[in-house]
């Protein structure tokens, strides 16, 4: 069951209210990030940063140990009289790989945690969703899985929040 709102403010208030009324299986859909809405439905922390950190560390260790192994163990050579373990020179590639791995884990982590790709989604069945959600409309969705859900009651409940429209979506 989704309700379409005109402005972000309306959405945020509606969401806040619903959350306070004990709804949990709910979500908001907006054309651009609206942090307030996220807070309103009680979504705060995400694990992307953690993933990134681990990724970065992996990159660092991987490259630095590779370099050390190659120049001291795999084929130690006298390069212009330099020591085989020339750590200052090894810093640069290690540094680059730290960033590479971190960056990739950030991006793919985000995508994975968001459960993307999900090319098909029930919401797209809603007649007004795709015209608005990525353009200029703001949606609040109360899901049928929520214990408080019942078709007529929920509709009435949403109506009460002054949306442009309320639509029930086939799951």
């Amino acid at each position: 069951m989704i309700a379409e709102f005109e402005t972000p403010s309306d959405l945020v208030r509606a969401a806040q209210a619903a959350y306070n009324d004990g709804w949990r299986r709910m979500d908001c859909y907006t054309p651009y990030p609206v942090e307030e809405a996220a807070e309103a439905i009680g979504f705060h922390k995400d694990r992307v940063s953690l993933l990134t950190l681990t990724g970065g560390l992996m990159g660092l260790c991987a490259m630095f140990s590779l370099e050390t192994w190659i120049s001291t163990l795999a084929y130690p050579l006298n390069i212009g009289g330099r020591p085989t373990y020339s750590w200052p020179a090894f810093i640069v590639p290690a540094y680059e790989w730290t960033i590479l791995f971190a960056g990739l884990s950030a991006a793919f982590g985000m995508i994975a945690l968001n459960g993307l790709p999900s090319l098909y989604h029930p919401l797209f069945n809603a007649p007004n969703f795709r015209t608005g959600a990525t353009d200029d409309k703001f949606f609040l969705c109360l899901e049928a899985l929520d214990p408080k859900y019942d078709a007529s009651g929920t509709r009435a409940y949403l109506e009460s929040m002054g949306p442009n429209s309320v639509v029930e979506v086939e799951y």
Partner: protein
Amino acid sequence: MSSEGGNGMMRKNEEQKALTLDQVRTKLEGVKGKRYWRSIDELAGTPEFEAAVAKEFPDAAAEWVDPVSRRGFLKLMSASLALAGLAGCTKQPDEPIYPYVKQPEDLVLGKANYFATAHPFATGGVPLLVKSDAYRPIKVDGNPDHAYNLGSSDVFTQATLLDLYDPDRSQHATVRGTTTEYVEFLEAYRERLNAGKANGGEGLYFLSTSFTSPTLQRQWAEAQKAYPKAKLVQYDPALAGTAFAAGLNPQFSLDKADVILALDADFLSGAGYPGFHKLTREYAARRKNPAKGMNRLYSVESTPSTTGLKAEHRLGLRASEIPAFAAALATAVGVPGVSAPNYSWSAEQTKFLSALTKDLKANAGKSVVIPGIYQDPSVAALALAINKALGNIDATVSLAGEASTSGDQIAGLKGLVADLNAGKVDWLVMLNSNPVYDAPADLDFKTALGKAKVSVHLGSHIDETGAEAIWHVPAAHYLESWSDVRAYDGTVSVIQPMIEPLYGGHTAHDLIQAMLDEPQTSAYEAVRSTWKSTISKGSGADFELGWRKALHAGWIEDTKYAASSAATAATAIKVPTPSSKDAFELIFRPDPNIYDGRYSNVGWLQELPKPVTNLAWDNAALVSGATLTKLGVDEGDILEITVGGRKVKTPVLVAPGHPDNSATLHLGYGREAAGRVGSGAGFNAYLVRTSDAPFYTTGTAVKVEGKWGIAVTKSHFQDLRSKVEGGDGSGTHSLEANEAETRGVIRSATLEEFKANPGFANEGEEHPKVERDNTLFANWEYKDNAWGMSIDLNSCTGCNACIVGCYAENNIAVVGKQQVRIGRNMQWLRIDTYFEGDLAAPKAHFQPMACQHCENAPCEQVCPVGATVHTPEGINTMVYNRCVGTRYCANNCPYKVRRFNFLLFSDFETESLKLMRNPDVSVRSRGVMEKCSYCVQRISEAKIEADKENRAIRDGEVVTACQQACPASAITFGNINDKTSKVATLLADERTYSVLADLNTRPRTQYTAAVLNPNPELAEAPVEHAPAKG
């Protein structure tokens, strides 16, 4: 699998060496591809074709015209295919093995043999020891046991190897241009000879280069008996008209000489001067340890030469002034009956003369005056007289016995031409000579030749003469045939063939022998019979034994000239008066690289930067800066030089120290039928050279339109910087030299300075001594061997022998003029020449510069794939097959000694060149960096032998190619960890310094600073010369 496909071919050779020579020969003839290239080459040679190309691709045209890169250009498709293959990492093709059918007993495949022989050069034989790999000569070097050259050699000798394998050598006898067989010719020849028996050989003429072979002389003498009326004319363009050719051949020994005067004698720069190897060695020997005193060299010369530039005191005079100067000197030292033409000498010249006279007198008996062979005969006579007056005869000069007496060659040639024009010449047989190209212009030999009923040309190439002659017979190279020759001191060396004639060539011996009773006698038999008596006599020696001994040793005992001080009768010496001061003089000299033109088609020599000028691939009118200004031209402009109505167009180039108002023209260029390399290079100076003035004359020079793209391998600018900018403000010095001195690249002192301060070479902040412990990280330890090299700048005379030796040893590619012009020449070793002081009267420093094998090598650190690394023995080794070609190492090399294969420079097609290559060295392909390796292949060989015998490598067991060739033994190589080794002691010397020491690269190659021994009287600053633009 790799782009060293080139060396794929190398490898194949290692098996193909097992090919019988017949097979090799058929290969050489048969190869379709080869014919194809030849024809393309011929086509591409024609002007129409070049014009067409020029229209098509304006800037590629140069490439087409340039013979070497033309080859590369044509190979494009094959190259690209190869590339595709490589990119796809396709597998190597199956390689065939050709084992012998019957393998010679003494042959161990993969191990080289060494044979003694000699190089019969016009100015005397050079005893050789030739390295032969499965009976293919692959390296020519001096005979280390021979007293004359002790293993040293020179550019010509080294290059004869490529001359042997020159793909453009004529491969068939021809008659009127159509291919025929040698026997055909022999038939006709015999017929003529038999016919001639009756009239004593009337109308039978021979024209040859000087007979250096005693056997040939004997054969001719006998032939003359059979055919009294047959005529022999000997003509060597570079020697005709010299006192040397006339038979005057005094022997100088410089080891006892404290004062040396060179009267236009360039005895330090190459085999062009008789006795070069010995003279240079003895000269250098007296300069190796200044503490023990050293000799002093004065030079009076008409064109700047390494001799003059090495000299403590040099006086540049126009060629015609030198006889007068010599006469003045003679009178000054008190030679009786010399009438010096009165001439107004400048203050500087007078000063020089008086100081010189004093010094010579002071060192009577310990001095020597060496006359230039390209001077008026009077100079030689005067020099002899002066030496006699100084009591140098038998001390530093000995008058040798029978020297090569080919009489007055020019008169002979004139006579021949007269007879030709008079129609007296029935048969003219030309032996190894090319008169159509190199005869004096006034004789117009070409037309005269047409008047001979039958003309025969025996030559290695179908050259200008070969094309004109009716018969052409391919000549055998000296490495292909039996003969003999006298060295400078008269010692006879037997010339033995290293390989069967590649193209079935024949020698003068065969043609002369054909006139005798047993015409079939081979050169081998002829040589044996010549020396039978000599070898057999004495302690009843068995001939066969003695003969084998002679072949093995490389010379025949007791054949030295008997020193006969039977002095020449003191005939009144006629001294020509100098030409008027404002007359423009032209000096003709054989080229330092290709001599009289006989080596035009040898790529190594064409690409070799000439001493002093560093000019490659061309000759030029060499003038002084002042003359350049006077003529109103710039370097590279074109002059039209006129001598008595004959004209030639020449590029201009400044030779620092050249006398004003005169120009030097080197002979040997402007060949039309030299081959793919030599044809079309430079201009032909013979066109303005006449029989009456073979070595200098007067003429005029005017600027004409256009530019002549000359390839000079080293930049030379005048230092026009003010003092503030870091210059010296004089405006007359060389920018490079001034920089080189400020940067401590070149360090030198006078004997006094040295005595006062022996450590002069390692002082001041620009010249720090290497502080081994002054380092951020631990020094790398070199435990077993640590290879190092010491180069004595006091000994090096810049004669270039080392460079050509390096070419041969390391399979270095020839890149062609266009590439040299944009700085892509591939020599691993170069001789840096810095002109110190006023460019009008400079002193020069010659610095051989190759990879320095720095212990802290900047190149290695920046190679992303580790293609250049240090070995445990401290060699900076270059792994060609690992190189991807980023060129970062070359950029980061402070010495700029790395060479990159920008294009496919190595020739992977030409069959004959494959036979020449050193099988122990990869032939580098396109896109690979290369550089001096300290001849690592020789080190590895020595190591393996030593390890097999379970011993350390002995000092002197490893000799680098450059060291081997050097006549001055300026280069020493060895293990610096072995404190007793020669190199270690030299590197410990106080005078030893490393170039760019302040970069802390720690070179393994270090230099011994030069010490000069000037005459105090002349020491102070020389007279100012008119500033000139350079």
